[in-house]
């Protein structure tokens, strides 16, 4: 009696495999999930080009590089600024037929050239980029006190020629430096594969990374700005910067973190005994 109720494991396994196959065929082929809520990275090349043009047009209007980068990150392109250059080049080579297309190409050139990229569209010399003095609407907006940060507004009248009776409440206060991020750690490493690199990680308190955060690297006589998330294969909160040997750099999230200690691209010896340039890993964490 007990024997009759026992399960045949071979038959069970065969059934399991057949059922699994049937289930997958049904879910993937016969009745796949209905497509909705498509994200920008899922767009086809034509739609992606339209989206890139829209991002560039918006950037030309508001000059908000951070917002443009956030939008570009949503496209999950390996190098979004080069993709902009390539797309503009493609549009240029296809022969732009309207003022709208010309405007789009010009806006794209303004955006990708701001990040040091180049393409056939800007090299053609056809497009006029001297109107890259954007922000027409913010200046058109009349006095909107809610939009302007009070700290900068109060600090400007102070150095003026106003008599000492002015602004008694504001003068005693020192400008509070409210940092949103802190530098957790700056470990160094020596590698011949990645010599003289500053790797920046911007993290959330628990786990998670923050894309689209602006980073400023400054050195004597220059500075560079770039954003996290543009190398998604390294993580959404990742960005890096190539140092020149023997030069000293300072890294910060402008207005949101303290400045790092000076990071010098000095010589080092890698694990395999070869000489290289020291690299840094700067880890910012949101407070």
């Amino acid at each position, binding site marked *: 009696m007990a024997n*009759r*109720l*026992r*399960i*045949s*494991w*071979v*038959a*069970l*396994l*065969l*059934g*399991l*495999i*057949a*059922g*699994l*196959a*049937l*289930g*997958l*065929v049904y*879910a*993937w082929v016969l009745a*796949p999930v209905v*497509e*909705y*809520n*498509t*994200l*920008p990275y*899922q*767009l*086809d*090349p034509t*739609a992606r080009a*339209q989206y890139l*043009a*829209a*991002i560039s*047009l*918006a950037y*030309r*209007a*508001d000059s908000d590089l951070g917002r443009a980068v956030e*939008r570009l990150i949503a496209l999950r392109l390996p190098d979004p600024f080069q993709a902009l250059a390539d797309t503009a080049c493609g549009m240029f080579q296809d022969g732009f037929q*309207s*003022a*709208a297309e010309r*405007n*789009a190409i010009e806006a794209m050139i303004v955006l990708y050239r701001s990040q040091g990229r180049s393409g056939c569209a800007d090299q053609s010399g056809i497009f006029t980029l001297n109107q890259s003095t*954007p922000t*027409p*609407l913010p200046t*058109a*907006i*009349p006095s*909107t006190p*809610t*939009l302007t940060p009070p700290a900068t507004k109060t600090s400007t009248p102070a150095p003026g020629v106003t008599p000492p009776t002015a602004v008694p409440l504001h003068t005693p206060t020192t400008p509070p430096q409210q940092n949103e991020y802190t530098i957790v750690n700056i470990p160094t490493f020596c590698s011949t594969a990645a010599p003289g690199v500053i790797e920046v990680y911007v993290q959330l308190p628990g786990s998670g990374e923050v894309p689209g955060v602006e980073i400023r690297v400054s050195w004597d006589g220059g500075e560079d700005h770039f954003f996290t998330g543009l190398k998604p294969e390294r993580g959404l909160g990742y960005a890096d910067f190539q140092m020149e040997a023997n030069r000293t750099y300072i890294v910060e999230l402008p207005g949101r973190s303290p400045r790092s200690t000076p990071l010098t691209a000095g010589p080092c010896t890698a694990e395999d005994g070869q000489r290289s340039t020291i690299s840094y890993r700067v880890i910012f964490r949101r407070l």
Partner: protein
Amino acid sequence: MTRLLLSLAIGLILGMALGLGIGYGLFPVEYINSPLTLLAESYRDDYTVMIASGYAVDRDLTGAVERLRALEVSNVPAYVQVVTERYISQGRNYADIVRLVALAEAMGRLTPLMESYRSAVSP
């Protein structure tokens, strides 16, 4: 024989449940090469804001309509009106609203709700 069939049926049911779970839950079909029309609403809205921002600079109404037509909305001006009013009612970014209102007005879709934002545009 009954034992075999019973085991096969149990396996089949379990396997199908597993397959459906994987196929719909863990690894559902992910679409690529989608048109702008299928974009999630938040991104469609953002796309509209971007186009309105572009219009704020170049004042090319034909170009703005052409770009919004890619969303395959049946009536572009009505669509811009809806997005603008939604932005206003949700208290979204002020500058975005101002630009949307400017575009809606250019399309002849200025509504009383937009009036206060319109005054910010006109010098």
